[in-house]
């Protein structure tokens, strides 16, 4: 790459902006500019290759699994890796239940932390909270799983079950909700708050009935995107909630199937019918995540803070 800077070379081509590239630049500089343009376009298309490839692979290998009614209504009970078919009902329910409990815990904590950061937080404590949210964003999911294992199972003597995973996923979901909610609360115009205070409304009521409703759409979007993130997590589930072939709707007792652990289980069985199920499960998981993402963006689109 040349180190020649623009101003040094600028004298000889101050005319004819229409032919900026070809007419008046020296050949080397024009060529570099063309190469850079080509490289940027190539970067984008290169980045699209894995996306298209993965989606193609998942669709071509897994789509036919989803068209059987048993996929959506039965579990893998009485199935072996030599038998084709069976369903993912147990794993879908496991993932949904776990995600529901995770969000019931994380959403209030995340929203209140964001309220603290935007509406109350000043000084050192607020800076520490903000820093810790950043650190929590970066905690690897396996470490979150290990931590819950160390607390919930080693120290408190609990068993591996669905709830333990929900706790680990909570650690991963809270920072996503805090960050998105924080951004949304900042978008609420100060005039609204001031108008409310001017009418003598107490601060908490201003937040609860003016600020939060105004930012509601954005908060929902953040929750949905956070949910999409934790639903695809596998690592904590491997430690905390071993896979089972059977339907278990009880988060507090026994092993539980989820879509990610089902993919992992089926792929280790290595025979064709199992691998096929593992692609089918992958497609199911992607579809659920995609629905959440699209829903989140639609909510964001239709309820922008005015």
């Amino acid at each position, binding site marked *: 790459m040349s180190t020649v800077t623009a101003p040094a070379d600028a004298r000889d081509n101050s005319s004819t902006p229409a032919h900026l590239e070809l007419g008046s630049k020296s050949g080397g*500089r024009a060529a570099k500019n063309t190469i850079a343009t080509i490289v940027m376009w190539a970067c984008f298309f290169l980045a699209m290759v894995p996306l298209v490839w993965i989606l193609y692979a998942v669709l071509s290998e897994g789509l036919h699994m989803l068209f059987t009614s048993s996929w959506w209504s039965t579990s893998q009970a009485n199935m072996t890796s030599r038998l084709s078919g069976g369903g993912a009902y147990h794993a879908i329910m496991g993932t949904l239940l776990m995600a529901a409990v995770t969000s019931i815990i994380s959403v209030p904590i995340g929203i209140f932390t964001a309220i603290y950061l935007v509406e109350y937080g000043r000084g050192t404590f*607020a800076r520490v*909270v903000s820093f810790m949210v950043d650190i*929590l964003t970066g905690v690897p999911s396996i470490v979150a799983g290990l931590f819950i294992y160390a607390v919930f199972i080693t120290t408190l003597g609990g068993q591996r079950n669905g709830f333990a995973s929900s706790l680990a996923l909570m650690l991963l979901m809270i920072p996503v909700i805090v960050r998105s909610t924080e951004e949304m609360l900042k978008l609420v115009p*100060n005039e609204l708050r001031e108008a409310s205070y001017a009418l003598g409304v107490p601060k*908490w009521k201003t937040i609860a009935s003016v600020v939060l409703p105004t930012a509601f759409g954005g908060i929902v*979007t953040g929750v949905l995107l956070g949910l999409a993130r934790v639903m*695809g997590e*596998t690592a904590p589930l491997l430690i905390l909630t071993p896979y089972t072939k059977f339907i278990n709707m009880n988060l507090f007792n026994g092993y539980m199937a989820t879509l990610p652990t089902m993919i992992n289980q089926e792929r280790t069985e290595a025979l064709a019918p199992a691998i096929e199920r593992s692609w089918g499960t992958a497609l199911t998981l992607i579809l659920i995540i995609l629905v959440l993402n699209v829903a989140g963006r639609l909510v964001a689109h239709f309820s922008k803070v005015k």
Partner: protein
Amino acid sequence: MTTSSTGVPNTEPPVDPNVRAGDAAQTPAAGGGSGSRRAGDTIFLGLSVGSGALVIALVTLIGVFLLMQAIPALARNEANFLTSSEWTVAGDHPRFGIASMLWVTVSSSIIALLVAVPLGVGVALFLTQYAPPWLQQPAAALVDLLAAVPSIVYGLWGALYFGFFIRDSGIQQGLNSVLGWIPIFATPPGSTTVSSASTIFIIGLVLAIMILPIITALSREVFAQTPVTHKEGALALGATKWEMIKTAVLPFGKPGVISASMLGLGRALGETVAVLIIVSALAPSAPWSFSVFRGGETFASRIANNAGEFDTPAKTGAYLAAGLVLFLLTFVVNAIARVVIERRKAFTE
């Protein structure tokens, strides 16, 4: 659509970002005097401060708990924890060390960064400077879609498609034959050729794809904030578009790119399940080698691989110690990212 994959909106808040939105609220809330402070306010403040404190407590507890339960195991360890590559955690004479895991974790993440940073910056420049306006939004959404693919699907695809593609493409063999004199690209001990589809090199490439959306999203955000006056100034001086980018956009966006790379690095270091599926674990007796053309285990993948073995506190302690090292590693990397962002006030807050 203002929300990127990282949940950070691209639009600047309409209020002055340096002024907390709640500043105006100070006077009325405090003005009533402590005696007439309303119960609702106290409860709300309590809940908010409590949630903030809970977040601090959680991060602190992660470190404390991992440390507390790792210490007994480390005390019984008969090998050097930092320099040994052994991993025998059962029995009365445990010998375990993190050297090989540390190498596999760091080398795969570095490969990921070397690929993802230039590519991510290129994509971000494309999205902000080159793409026609009608393409910018949909193209950015497509790149964000890469972040929505769960890591286990990357693992599945990497193990069943991408790994074989790289193996058969001859990239590994080419690097090995040209740069084989560097230990990193050497032929691994115990084999004569570079013909594996489950190597550190391949997981490095898959990790690169996985962190690409993070790097792209953040870089795009800073590039888009380049002052128009800088860009127009460069163009008015006769710079070509590329020279304008090199002299105005890239210098302006540098801190953003650095912190984006750090966040990507943090993600790559901690990635578990894609590594678990794609990279083959080595036999415990495998000799030490720097080669990236063989299998291995990262901190995360070894922990996940052996999750079924957590039956005694002693065994679990060894894995918790490995987890603690990983936590510290990502903590440092993320803290650096944060500091770089903080220094550049034009970015986020």
